[in-house]
């Protein structure tokens, strides 16, 4: 898919994520659409495309988020790349994409928190506080389950995109 489509598509998804999606909270958490898209695309198109999508989606999420810059970009690039490594095996079983999404969400959220903790400072000189155990139990687990449920549906939709735009692929050189 050409970069001229990837950027507006992910920007639109980021905008929806920052406005509408938080209203769909279940168990106190809401789906992470940019993450789900990046992982799905990585699983479909390999590490290179996963990395590229992770970069674009990460920049957009970081723009909308109050977290330090890079807190979303770095983990999204990482999960996009790692998801891409499982490209050839993950669609052999319909349960593998949700499992991959579950693990990717855990990895992404933990890496996000790690970056939040080590970078930046808040007003009044206080650093970002991370409550690891509480976040793991109350947020990350529920979020991983929710994203895994979406992985039953979204990668199928992404396959349509994949077939439609496969000939227009743009790699890192296209940036």
């Amino acid at each position, binding site marked *: 898919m050409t970069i001229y489509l990837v950027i507006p598509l992910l920007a639109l998804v*980021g*905008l929806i*994520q*920052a*406005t509408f*999606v*938080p*209203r769909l*909270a279940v168990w*106190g*958490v*809401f789906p*992470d659409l*940019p993450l789900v898209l990046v992982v799905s695309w990585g699983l479909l198109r390999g590490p290179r495309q996963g990395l590229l999508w992770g970069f674009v989606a990460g920049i957009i*999420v970081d723009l*909308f*988020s*109050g*977290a330090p810059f890079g807190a*979303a970009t770095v983990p999204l690039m990482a999960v996009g790349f790692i998801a891409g490594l499982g490209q050839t095996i993950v669609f052999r079983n319909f349960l593998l994409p949700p499992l991959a999404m579950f693990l990717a969400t855990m990895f992404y*959220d933990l890496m*996000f*928190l790690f970056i*939040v903790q080590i970078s930046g400072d*808040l*007003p*009044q*000189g*206080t*650093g*970002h*506080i*991370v*409550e690891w155990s*509480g*976040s793991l139990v*109350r*947020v*990350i687990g529920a*979020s991983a389950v929710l994203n895994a449920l979406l992985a039953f549906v979204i990668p199928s939709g992404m396959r349509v995109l994949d077939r439609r735009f496969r000939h227009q692929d743009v790699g890192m050189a296209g940036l």
Partner: protein
Amino acid sequence: MTRHRLRRLIPYLLIAAVLGGLIVQRAGLWQPIEGLLSQAAAPLQKGLSQAIAQVQGLTQTARDLRELRQRNVELEAENARLLLEIVRLREIEVEAALQRDLLNFAQSHPTFDIQGAHIVGLVIGRDPTNLQRYLTLDVGRKAGVARNMPVVTNRGLVGRISDVGETWSRVLLITDVSSSVNAITQSSRATGLVQGRPDGLPVMRDIPQADTVSVGDTVFTSGLGGNFPRQILIGQITAVERNDYDLYQTAIVQPTVDFNHLEMVLIITDFEPIEEQATEGQ
């Protein structure tokens, strides 16, 4: 008799028939003939008149239908316009109510210089991640907003400004784990620190064991530390966790602000946190 001759005779025949009719009428013989003719014609007349009435009805119905359709289109357009008007007026009503509430807050806190702001819910509203709790507002440096300014609604404390742009600002909510607010309970005057938790329900920590804290107590900002003004409502205690071996007790606080349905907030622009003043002084 040729056809030509017959044609010449027709006027005479007609005149003769009329004259004959007059003679028959004058002789009183017309009425039975008329009765017989009328009796024979009545069913035909009735059928015809009914058919005509039906045709007339049909054309009238078609005309009515056309008019009704036209009227319906007009009424639907009017209905849509009125619905839009109702929606607009309701929006104005809600906005007016919000502003009235905020005004009440402003009037009850006359020492604050207050700057009103809208949350840009449709554009850059909320934090896109589950792990952070921020809101983005549509006012920034241009409107006099600066970092650390407290953000409130008529229902209580929302948070403080953490980032500012020219026309936007970001608010760190009191429900974020990085947020901490010095607080005091209304009835027992117990002091503590209200901190956010990952699930969005803040806790009041560091409450001395000697203090009595009970469910239902309201929690206000204490003003200690100089980060927030005094006496801004934070929430209500819903549970108390107390262990004899701990130095402090902890209470779960249900914020009075509904963070999921925030539309308008107030930024207290004249309040300068102590640490910020110290930083500027350096």
